[in-house]
């Protein structure tokens, strides 16, 4: 998809939340949802950081702080996802994410943790909404 725009404004970030909500609550497995959010977040934040080179240092400007917070939330999401995907072979080259066995206490804990990380990321991104 190619997006083109010539006019200024700030509404479009709201649309990001539509896609994030879609990713959070769609029909795909939660680990895939988390992966898509992390992929999109990484690309989005890298692009935003390029647009704000002043944020490369520890600038205390609001937009810089929010970009850093969003990166931290994304990395926390990755931590939760790796916990969710953890299996004996996870970490070996080429071994894909293997969700925990459904119905077990470990699966419930891992799922809750991953859901919480997704919700936290969503909350942090909402704060970023008004800053760009």
């Amino acid at each position, binding site marked *: *998809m*190619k*997006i*083109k*725009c010539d*006019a*200024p*404004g*700030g*509404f*479009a*970030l*709201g*649309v*990001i*939340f*539509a*896609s994030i*909500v*879609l990713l959070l*609550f*769609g029909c795909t497995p939660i*680990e*895939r949802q988390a*992966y*898509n959010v*992390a*992929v*999109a*977040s*990484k*690309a*989005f*934040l*890298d*692009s*935003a950081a390029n*647009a704000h080179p002043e944020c490369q240092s520890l600038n205390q400007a609001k937009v810089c702080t929010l970009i850093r917070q969003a*990166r931290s939330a*994304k*990395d926390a999401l*990755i931590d939760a*996802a*790796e916990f969710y*995907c953890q299996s004996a072979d*996870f*970490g070996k*080259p*080429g*071994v*894909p*994410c293997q969700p925990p066995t459904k119905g077990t206490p470990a699966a419930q804990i891992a799922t809750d943790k991953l859901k919480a990380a997704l919700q936290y990321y969503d909350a942090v991104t909402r704060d970023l909404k008004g800053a*760009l």
Partner: protein
Amino acid sequence: MDYSLLISLGLDFTKMLIGHFTKAKAPQEVIDAIQAAYDAIEQHGKDTMTKEQWEALRG
């Protein structure tokens, strides 16, 4: 906006809406960032989510 409607209609429709809204209102840096995000999702859609792939998304 009713996001639940978007959820029920799916990602392709959401992409179309993004194109519609951004065409009218968004600053270029936001457009570029959204474009980068969707390009990345399409590029990584077939990833098997190995630990290496997760780790590459840090930072």
